[in-house]
Structure formats: C-alpha cells, structure tokens
C-alpha cells in the first residue's frame, strides 16, 4: 500500500500532448479520404450483392501503373532520406523522379480507361463499370492534388529550402504521397478480388 502511495507522489503530471498541428491536420484529412473510399467500396459491395453485375477482366495496363506508383513512392522516400542528410543533388533527382512517375501513372490510368472503352465497358451502363471509372477517377483526382503538393516541395527543393532543419514540407508531402500509393493498392486489390 505504501508503495502505491509513493508511486502516486512521484508521478509527474503529464505534459499536454502537442504534436505538430499541421501534421495532425494532415492525418485527419487522410481520415476523410479513407471514409470517402470506404463508403464507395462498401457501396460497390452492397450493389454487387444484388446481382445483375457485369464482369470484366481488368486491363493489364493497371498492373503496370501500380508498379509505376510503387516506384514513385520509393523515389519519394529516397528524396526524404536525402533531405534528411542534406544531400541536395540526390534530393533534386529523387523528387523529380517522383513527380515524373506520378505524371506517368496518371497517363497510364487514362490509357486504361481507353482500353476499357475498347472492351465496351463504359462509364454509363452497368454499375460495375461505372464504379470502376468512379474509383479510378476519384483516385486520379487525389493524385492530381498530390502532384500539386509535390510541385510545391519540388520548387522548394530546387530553391534549396528543403534541408535537415526544414523537413516539415517534405514530410507532409511524403506522407500524403505514400498514402495515395497505399490507397491505390487497396483499390487495385479490391477491384481484382471483387470484379
């Protein structure tokens, strides 16, 4: 009993938690995106369970685009590590690669849509096809916002404003970009499993 009492006395009052508010805001923003896609995919499942569902093979190009996005995520991480070590040359190369791969991903998604049209799967028609376009389109929209964030970091990197002591911008950028990568992998696996 005495021990317990002593422990109580020694216990320090807790510091009020203070994470970087901007990063905290980013995480909450990611929660809203998660909920957006969670509701879309559950709507997909509910609708699919009702039957009258057009089944089609996913065009191969989506496999390649997934690989491209994964590569861009790796490049992003490389950029972040370089910024941490103040290796500006590598940082510039890595962040440029990320940006270019992001653009290629977008273009490949668009090519994928063209393939779908060739397969007679249209946006207007059976909901299974419409959902496919909505998922890829919404994700593409978020990739565009991600590219804007990337562009901001990219210009900052070329002005040498990203370095060991000013990492917040590139941390936010990296978190968002990785999130968009994981989000796409989720959608990709989801669409493969429940086609």
């Amino acid at each position: 009993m005495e021990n317990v009492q002593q422990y109580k006395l020694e216990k320090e009052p807790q510091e009020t938690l203070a994470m970087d508010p901007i990063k905290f805001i980013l995480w909450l923003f990611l929660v809203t995106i998660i909920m957006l896609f969670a509701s879309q995919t559950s709507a997909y499942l509910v609708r699919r369970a009702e039957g009258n569902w057009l089944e089609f093979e996913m065009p191969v190009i989506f496999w390649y685009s997934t690989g491209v996005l994964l590569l861009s995520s790796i490049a992003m991480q490389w950029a972040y590590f370089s910024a941490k070590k103040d290796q500006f040359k590598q940082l510039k190369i890595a962040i440029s690669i990320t940006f270019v791969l992001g653009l290629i991903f977008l273009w490949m998604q668009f090519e994928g849509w063209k393939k779908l049209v060739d397969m007679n799967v249209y946006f207007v028609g059976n909901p299974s096809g419409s959902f496919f376009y909505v998922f890829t389109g919404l994700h593409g929209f978020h990739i565009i916002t991600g590219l804007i964030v990337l562009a901001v970091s990219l210009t900052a990197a070329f002005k040498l404003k990203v370095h060991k002591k000013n990492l917040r911008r590139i941390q936010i950028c990296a978190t968002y970009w990785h999130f968009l990568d994981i989000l796409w992998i989720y959608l990709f696996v989801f669409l493969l499993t429940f086609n």
Partner: protein
Amino acid sequence: MSAIEGLETAQHHADEHEHHHEAQNFWQKYIFCEDHKVIAKQYLITGILWAVIGITMSVIFRIQLGLPDSNLSWLKPVLGGWISDAGKLDPNFYLALVTMHGTIMVFFVLTAGLSGTFSNFLIPLQIGARDMASGFMNMLSYWFFFLASVIMFASLFLQSGPAAGGWVIYPPLSALPQAHPGSGMGMTLWLASMAFFIVSQLLGGINYITTVINLRTRGMSFDKLPLTIWSFLITAVLGLISFPVLLSSVLLLIFDRHFGTSFYLSDIYINGEALPNVGGSPILFQHLFWFLGHPEVYIVLLPGLGITSEVIATNARKPIFGYRAMIASMLGIAFLAFIVWAHHMFVTGMNPFLGSVFMFLTLIIAVPSAVKGFNYITTLWKGNIVFTPGMLFSIGLVSLFVSGGLTGIILGNSALDIQLHDTYFVVAHFHLVMGAASAFGLFAGVYHWFPKMFGRMMNTTLGQIHFWLTFIGIYMVFIPMHYVGIAGFPRRYYQFTSYDFTHKYMDMNMFISIAAILSFLAQFIFLWNFFYSIFKGKRSPQNPWRSNTLEWTAPVVPGHGNWEGEIPAVYRWSYDYSKPGAKEDFIPQNIPYSQTLESNFPHENELIAQEKAIESQNFNDQFKASH
C-alpha cells in the same frame, strides 16, 4: 493542401508580430478574419438568419395543414406565383417548403449555426489557447459555409422552385428532372450547396479536433476538460467520419443526374416510356445517406448536451454529477451512432433478422441517453438553482430530451415502426428530441455566453418570458402531433381534407398550427433582446455567472489572442462549485490547490506537489513557440 501551406506562412507571420498590434482594416477585422471569436459570431448571425427563414417556412405550411380553408392572398407579395388566384398555396411549393425547412434547420441552423458558433467560440477560450490550430482554415470553413448558404438561398428564387424531394433527397424522385419541378435546377443547386457545406464542415471539424488535442494549456489534461469541449470534440469526430460518406452518396447522385449512370436508377418508366438506366439500386442511396444521416442527429444534439452540462452545473452551483459517466455516455452514443442507420429503413424490404439486429442496437442507445438524463437531474437535485434564461433553456433541453427520447424507444422497434413509419408520430419524435432539444441548447448557449461574446448582458426578464412561451409552445405543438401520427396521418401530404379518417382530427391539427404560430411569434422577443443587447445591453462584469471555466479569466471582451500576457495554467477540473470549506461557492480552474488549503480533500493536498511541475511545462503558446 494549399491551405496547409498557407497556414505555414500565416504562422511565421504570427511569430514575427508577437502582440498583433498592427492596425487591421475593416475587411481583415470583420470579413476575412481569422480570429475564432469573430468567426463564431459570423456563424451565429448567419445561423440566426437561416433560422428565421426556416421557421417562417414551417409556419406557412402549418397554416396550410391546420387551416386548409384560409385565404393566403396576403402572402402574395412575398411568395408571388406560388399562391394561386384563389389564395391557395401551390402543392408543389408546399413540398419544396417542407424540404427546405428540413435542410435549413438540420444543416444550416443546427449543424453550422450550433457547432460552428460554440465550437469556434469556446474551444480556444476554454482550453486556454490563443486561437484555433489554423485560423486560415477556420476562415475558409466559414466562407465555404457562406457560399453554400448563398447557393441554397438562390435556389429559393428559382421559377421551378427549390429542391422538393424531402431533405433526405431519395432517388429516383431526386434523380430525375422529369419527376417533379423541384428535381430540376432546384435539386442541382441543392447538391452543389451541400457539397460546399460538407467541405466547410470538414475544414471546421479537422480544426476543432486538432485544437483540442494539441493546443491545451499547461495542466489541462483530458480529465480536466469541461464537458462542453468533450462534446465538441466528439461531435467533430462524428462529422469527420460521416460527412465524407454524404459526399460520396451525393457524388454518385450527381453522376446519375448529369451523366446518365445507373447507380441508383433501374427499370423506370415515364409516361409508358422506359428509361435507359438498368441495374441501379435506390436502396443503396438510403444506406449511404443514413450512414451520414444518423450520426448527423448526434452532430446536432451533442453540442447542445455539452452546453447544458456546463450551464446546469454553473447555475445549480453544484459539481456535475458523474463527470466520467457523462464522457463515457457521449462516447457510447457516438459509437452506436454508426451502427444503427438501418433503423430508418425498416420498411424498405429489409431482411427481418437484419431488422431485429438494428432494432437491438438502436434500443441500446437508450442506456447512455438515460445515463445523461439521470446525471442532469441529479446535478439539479438539491442545488442552489439560479434561474437565468440559459439555465431555464438547459432544464428545458433535459425535459425535451427525455420526452422525445421515450418515443424513440417506441420507434426503434421494427414491428411498431411499420405502423408509425413516415407518420406525424416520427415528425413529433425527432422534432422534440433533435430539433427542439438542440434549439434549446443553442438558446442556452447564446444566453449564457452572450456576455463573453459581446461584453454586454441580455435582458433576463425578456429571456425568461421567451423561455416559458417557447417551452409551452413546443409541447403544445408536438404532444398532440403524436396522436395525429398514431391516427395515421402521413408526413409530407399537402392536405388532409379528402380522407374520411382524417376529419375527426382536423381540430387537433388546427390546434397544432395555432400553437406553432404562437411559438413562432415568441421568437421575436429573442431576436429583439439579442440585437438590442449587442448595442444597448448592460455592460457585463468579469464573471457574470460566477463560473469556473477559463473563458471568464480572459478580459471581458478578449482581443486577438484571448489573454493579455501569459495564458493561465490549469490545476483542477471545472466543476468545483459549493465546495465545503471554500470561501466562495466556486473555485475557477486556474486557482492552484496550494491557495485553497481550507477546502482541499486529502488527495488534492497531494496534488500540490505537482503544481511546480505544471507551471514549468512549456506554454504551448502558438503566438510564441512555432510548432
């Protein structure tokens, strides 16, 4: 994301000018202001204007329902073509009125007006922060709301009328412009307005959560937070999770309406001609909508409950009964809010087994709600009650919450709901428990924090008259409405004169309408009191209600940054009222235990040792230490 970048520069700006004495022009001070107190007032005034519009609409359709033979020609100057030459209300416009009343009251008044006002105003003041985590996002949140308001307001003036498919906008009615005049341009504007509204709520909610978690002052641990802040935090989390789902359902509806997809549409014939849409499911929309729609009920109600906790404890001069139970029950309600949505859909042909699962989950909500009701009443028990208008409205909220909640237990039963679904019984239920109760929370908050907002007092006598007229009026409207509902009156019908079974109840309907008009008129007492007191009210003392929370330690009219000099540290919870042995009957949160030796409990004496440690913690002052 650009908002985040913008904030970064804004904060550097703040670092450079520690004391913010640079002159602000009119635009910076009142229009594009990033000060949470000004934004709160913007929300409040906009909310009040919307409330006037929304309640006026309800009075117009109550006249139509209760006094079907009346000549409405006198409304012609305002409604113009919507009143026929014979003085009759246009039936299509009746549906639009019902729809817009619901939309305006639920979203624009009780979500934006209530949460927007009090979360913005009270969170920084009660947790001891200089401002919100991101003033820029906060400003953006208000202006997105303003944009949504403008679009919704504009839709009222369309020649084809505003949206008229009910505030729940079920497809196919809302998806097909051919279905109804209101489903054309009115619906398009409704959807656009709601999309901006959702953005506004998300920006606001993200800010509230971040502020509460990251910017509390020294010593303000979660178990010392006032219940108001707990309720705003939980409300914001609910909004954060549910509003994206509404966005999702609205997005698919927009695709159906404008691009011809078939998410919600299938096998529809109009004038014998088949539409091309195949394979859609209208029930899917209901699932998505009510996944937002049910949490939305608690988004509306929880801030009112939080405000009530604070006002009742202060004016009963007693600690709140069951502080932790209050938090736990709010968390319980918030959790259950997400797994009961299908009780709005018992009659959609749902599997009866699934129905009974949702029924069971729904009825569990009675437990945390009853805990809250019990705790309010036990807080009042043997208190030295001061009947300020804020207190009266808080007690009124408890009364409405209990009597409206009781019928919730009836409606939650899937078997009973088959009889009662879409009747006036449902209307009476949710108006009591969600509409009137939350509105009372709003009134309580306005009366209680008016001195802090404007530095002046509202007239107490007028406030008490306003309370009694409103309280009696609300019950006179909604208690009889339950009986009308049990008798089988369906909601959203233009008139009841052409059915045999409704004749008997026409006098009751008339009674409801007259009561509604009287309670509507009583609100003008409030409006006069509110706007008169802003300019001419008695000057407020430092702490008019002798309350414990931090906002009363700030100057009577706080400037930007809220406290001059240091932010106060916090040593105790906010409910030390009538503590035995204390000199006064209240001890504010910023008084350390070492100064109140005469009233400390043994375990509180031990906490004195920690005070030095609390004082030495970092200030968590946004204006000084950049995050």
